[in-house]
């Protein structure tokens, strides 16, 4: 029996589940439902693509959801206060970029471990937002800016815009990682930062760039999520969304120790979660029950992986969690 990678195991699990649902649930296979399924996890997928780059570069961004919520809310508040839409959107982007570069600076130059730097910055950004940007958890999109609802609720050629944006961002990042020099540098840094540095790679600027990128992805995902429901629920910072993002990344087989994996892994993980959620909603399983089933499936994936691919001195990497 050939050795299966974690990605393949998760993919097989997905195939089995998808086939079961298709067989057992009427209407599951319809075009409309498949679209609904993917749209339901499009934002999660986009966030996971952004997180993937950071994780491949041997980092982690725990501030992503906070940046997402606050930068989007900031942009909405500006619109409500009469700023032109383009300027409000641009300033939101600038805010996200600044936060990303501060995080990157803390990690690359001050050399604070990513785990702590992003955890602290996430709390800071959210606190700053609550204090200075918005007084309420729900920040509504003003009716004057209804035109940008297209991002989260529009359709092009029979496909919802969020799905197109998910596919677009996945493609762009995949091409970047596989074919650009910078993308290869990210792998090199993630695999072994010390040797990457000795070989002359600009490791520190590269790290800053990764966090700027993940912050910008957070902002974009926030816009898509919020324009879809005409409000930004900043309380999402306290939800399990961040863990779901990390879950999708790790589940698909991207190692937290860096240097491994790609966009394909993220897509496999996203599909599994999306199918699971969609099927369970159709079956009208309660939220609490859904969480139990979700965790059991994830445990199965991890257990199968550790049985088929036992860790030993050769496969284990320094920094494995």
């Amino acid at each position: 029996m050939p050795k299966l990678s974690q990605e393949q195991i998760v993919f097989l699990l997905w195939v089995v589940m998808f086939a079961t649902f298709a067989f057992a649930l009427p209407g599951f296979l319809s075009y409309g439902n498949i679209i609904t399924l993917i749209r339901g996890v499009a934002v999660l997928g986009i966030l996971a693509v952004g997180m993937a780059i950071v994780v491949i570069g041997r980092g982690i961004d725990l501030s992503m959801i906070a940046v997402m919520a606050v930068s989007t809310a900031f942009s909405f508040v500006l619109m409500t206060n009469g700023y032109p839409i383009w300027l409000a959107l641009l300033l939101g982007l600038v805010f996200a970029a600044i936060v990303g570069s501060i995080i990157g600076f803390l990690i690359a130059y001050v050399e604070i471990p990513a785990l702590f730097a992003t955890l602290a910055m996430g709390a800071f950004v959210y606190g700053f937002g609550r204090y200075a940007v918005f007084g309420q958890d729900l920040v509504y999109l003003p009716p004057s800016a209804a035109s940008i609802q297209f991002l989260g609720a529009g359709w092009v050629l029979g496909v919802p815009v969020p799905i197109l944006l998910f596919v677009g961002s996945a493609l762009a990042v995949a091409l970047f990682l596989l074919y650009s020099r910078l993308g290869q540098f990210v792998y090199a840094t993630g695999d072994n930062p010390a040797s990457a540095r000795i070989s002359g790679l600009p490791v520190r600027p590269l790290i800053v760039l990764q966090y700027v990128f993940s912050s910008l992805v957070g902002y974009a995902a926030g816009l898509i999520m919020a324009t879809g429901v005409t409000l930004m629920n900043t309380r999402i910072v306290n939800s399990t969304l961040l863990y779901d993002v990390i879950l999708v990344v790790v589940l698909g087989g991207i190692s937290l120790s860096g240097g491994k994996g790609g966009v394909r892994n993220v897509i496999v993980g996203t599909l599994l979660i999306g199918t699971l959620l969609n099927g369970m909603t159709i079956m009208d399983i309660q939220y609490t029950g859904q969480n139990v089933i979700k965790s059991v499936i994830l445990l199965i994936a991890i257990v199968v992986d550790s049985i088929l691919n036992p860790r030993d001195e050769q496969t284990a990497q320094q920094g494995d969690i």
Partner: protein
Amino acid sequence: MKSKLIIGTLAGLCCITAALTGARADGLVDPSRAGYLEAFKGKKVAFVPIAMGFDLAQAWNSQLAKQADELGYSYVVRDPNWSTEAGAQALTQLIAEKPDLIVVHSPDIQSYARLLKQAEAAGIYTVQINMKSAYVSEAYVGSDYNGLGETAANLIVKQCGEGSGKSGKVSIVQGVLTGGASVYQIEGIERVFAKHPEIKIVSNQAADWDASKAKAITQTVLQQNADLCGIIGFWDGMDSGIGAAVREAGKTGQVYVVTSGGGATSACDNVNNGTFSALISYNAMGQGRDLNTMIKALLEMKPKPGTVKIIDYSPLTVLTKDSLKPDSCWALPTATASK
């Protein structure tokens, strides 16, 4: 003789008028006033909401702060920001500080029950606002969620029930399953639907008070049930997501969306633009005033803690596009809204 009498009468009238006008100029001291004002001197009231960052808590807070300011008692807010643990900690801390009264907003019916009992033992009045705890303290001010569920269900029955020619398929989107707003409301809904076998609940899910989750659930349900007739959501802030899903499916007006909430302007806007078909408002600003009345009553009457149990259900108003008036919803005074 006669003229003397007239003069005398006139003089008398004069005196009486003079006396009366004199009295009017001096005014009368309301004998109850000193005692009333005295009742609040040096008192301390605390407020522990689930979080400060949403419309209901801000409305209550603006009313509570206003009265405290007017009557000169001290008022503190402890904001646990959606964390039940932080809320329990804040309550424990407050019980040690011994304020005269605590206004509590319970995240679910169990978590604070024991602490409310402790507060009672420590001689502190507790007034519960809008979400009931399993433990009944001195007062509950807020929605009658059993009744609210009934009202919502009846609205749906009217639209989707017998004789409507519709499918009778209904979806329910709850908040957090263990919350006071959910457990009592679902009972009211189910009780009404039990009498109407033509209504079929095709989905009953919790969306954790989050609009995006509510949207994803509703999209799946609409996909599975193209002939869905009605949706009941449990809070307008979350139900914008339900409305967005219905709008995106091009079914605005075909699917009857019933929501409920404190009646902030954002909710009325959503009724006006068709996101919600009906909004059951429990008027959070009015609840704030009810809270103030309850605080005054308890501080004036000074009952022994635990000896009174007052229930004050808020009046409900059903708002639809037709019944909406410019003053149906409230906006916060700008001073509180900005912070």
